[in-house]
């Protein structure tokens, strides 16, 4: 604080202004977050089925929903798949995003604007719209991808991409990465523009080569941005829902391709077991907190410095 106020503030006096300013934000958070989370916690202790949805009283069953969940082997394979999917996607997204950001810095203005417009279009495209196109691309009978691969002489006539979980996840990964790369690319590009040219010139004069300038100067400088986008990607990719659901609607087998989001949806809204689904969501909330805790801690540390 470099304020030159003539009235130095006494330490004992309570200043209400910050609290007054915080109140609306806290109120909105409470209304938008506390109520649903509270309801979720409460429902997860009930036997809540379709009859309860239509107004019949629900029985309190304590932690039975949780014990039922944790003893189900299917749940653990869904959790394992979701974690793997989330890490692979987050890392791929950030890697490709950084590469594109560096590319944007290196090319001429015209090329950069073309690139940025392309990225923005992918980012702005409504998910359902682009998913429809993706599903058509990979249609087993009429799909462009099969047609093209067949033209190249490969045995892909009527190949069904959604049948095997491995190729299902490959397509899902391509779609999710395609949709989230623009965000990373723009964030990192913004970070790169903050790296001062003096520092880079000095490094160049000192004889640092391109890759050393990147790893030892640029990377540390944009590290806060990278940390945040990676954290956001991990959280988003853990909760991925629409893309998986729409691919499943296109015919993919559900049990072997379910991730956390679609699994909860099918458990709750699909087969009307809302109590169990609520317990599962609470579990995912805990998982998200555990996953992001180390990142948040190190982010906080950097903020203090």
């Amino acid at each position: 604080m470099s304020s030159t106020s003539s009235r130095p503030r006494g330490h004992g006096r309570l200043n209400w202004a910050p609290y007054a300013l915080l109140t609306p934000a806290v109120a909105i958070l409470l209304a938008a977050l506390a109520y649903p989370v509270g309801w979720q916690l409460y429902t997860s202790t009930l036997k809540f089925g379709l009859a309860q949805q239509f107004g019949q009283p629900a029985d309190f069953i304590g932690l039975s929903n949780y014990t039922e969940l944790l003893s189900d082997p299917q749940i653990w394979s869904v959790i394992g798949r979701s974690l793997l999917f989330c890490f692979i996607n987050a890392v791929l997204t950030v890697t490709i995003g950084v590469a594109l950001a560096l590319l944007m810095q290196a090319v001429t203005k015209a090329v950069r604007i073309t690139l940025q417009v392309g990225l923005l279009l992918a980012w702005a495209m409504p998910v359902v719209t682009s998913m429809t196109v993706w599903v058509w691309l990979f249609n087993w009978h009429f799909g462009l991808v099969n047609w093209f691969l067949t033209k190249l002489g490969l045995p892909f006539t009527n190949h069904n991409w959604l049948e095997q979980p491995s190729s299902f996840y490959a397509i899902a990964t391509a779609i999710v990465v395609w949709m989230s790369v623009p965000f990373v690319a723009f964030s990192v590009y913004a970070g790169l523009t903050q790296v001062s040219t003096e520092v880079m010139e000095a490094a160049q004069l000192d004889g640092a080569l391109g890759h050393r300038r990147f790893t030892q100067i640029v990377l540390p400088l944009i590290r806060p941005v990278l940390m945040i986008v990676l954290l956001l990607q991990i959280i988003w990719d853990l909760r991925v829902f629409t893309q998986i659901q729409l691919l499943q609607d296109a015919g993919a087998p559900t049990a072997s391709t379910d991730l956390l989001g679609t699994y909860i949806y099918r458990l709750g809204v699909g087969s009307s077991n809302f109590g169990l689904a609520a317990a599962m969501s609470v579990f995912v909330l805990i998982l998200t907190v555990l996953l992001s805790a180390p990142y948040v801690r190190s982010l906080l540390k950097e903020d203090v410095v």
Partner: protein
Amino acid sequence: MKRTKRAVALAAVATAAALALSACSSDNQPNPSDSPTAQNITLWLAGGDTPDSLRDWLKSEYNSRTGGVLTIEEQAWGDLVTKLTTSLPDANNTPDVVELGNTQSPTFTNVGAFSDISDLYTELGGANLLQSFVAAGAVDGKNYALPYYFGSRYMFYRKDIYAAAGVAQPTTLEEFNQAVLRLTQVNPNGIADFSGFFIGGQDWRNGISWIFANGGDLAQKENGQWVMTLSDPNTIKGLQQLQDIFQNASKAPSTAKDESPWLYINDSDSTTDKAADGTETDLPTSLAAATIMAPGWAHWSIGDLVTVDGKPARQWNDDVFGVFALPGADGQPAPVFAGGSNIGVSAASRNQEGARELLRIIFSADYQRMLGEQGLGPANSLYVDSLGSDQFAQALIASAANSKLTPAAPGWAGIEGSKLMEEFFSKIAQGGDVVALAAEYDDVLTPMLNQR
């Protein structure tokens, strides 16, 4: 602002009408919207089965009878259960009248999603209504949901391909199973991945016909509890025949459902493939199946490609296409899945009177006949003759004769919503061990059957 003014005016009229009504009747009607006068209501129809001409008629008829506006919203069959689950309990979001699958009807009826319409039952057709569907919408002798239409599935086949392969129209189930195998092997037109019978691996609604035709069943009620019977020897026999078809007669993906199979039986518009040297070859892109199983109204989508009013349309061609009901083991029509819908009034709806008036319109002789003329089986048996007597009507009536419903268990809609039946059938289509899979899914599904 115009809307607000109109709404105020409407409310005023409704209030006045309600006051007038309560003045001359002993009924106490505190809520003005209980009056049928100009209630604006919403009807949910499932899928595209009800043609546009019928929808338009319903709207104008409702408007001329009540002065209110009927809005029709179409819901996809695939997520109908989830939509009903989230919307029906909520008075602010509920549609007033809903169509739902006959197999989903017991679940929602049991939890109290619909208004009791027993007092209307006789007026709407009573004993003339299709009784198996009435039962699917009744609890303890009270009627909550009534049949909307029925339509069972039958076979569409390519006469030209059957003839070229030297295969006659089958007359028993065994003959059918052999015929489609042979058609696949002979493949007279030399088409890549040709199916004698195109049936998707997740298509359990058509697939269960083989279970029923062999005397098997999906579930039974024992001592007041529902139990899955996939491991029953007759069910297993049907599933094994089906697996043989999935593996050796159908090239449909194991992930395909029962959506638009007619794409594969039409010749379709051929795409022109231009080679590097300038020669052009026409490739038939679609024809990939000699037989499909579909609801009767699919015949509007099958035939030669013609142009009507500048738009491509299908014209049925008797030389190329034919229909028959799936034959059973004894040569009689096989018990196929009895498709069709029920219709009910949402219990949470604030427009009960308008909704009841819409039911009167739907069950009127005029509308029942219109359903029949479009190939949808009318709910009221008095009007079944409106289906006509052409080959489609005959196949529909023959296939419906022995048709069967899925279990009327309280949890059946939940099983449909969970997509576990799709999963079970696709595992069979992929060549899984039928006996082991049946035992596995019996264990998974039985608790869900009894879940309320």
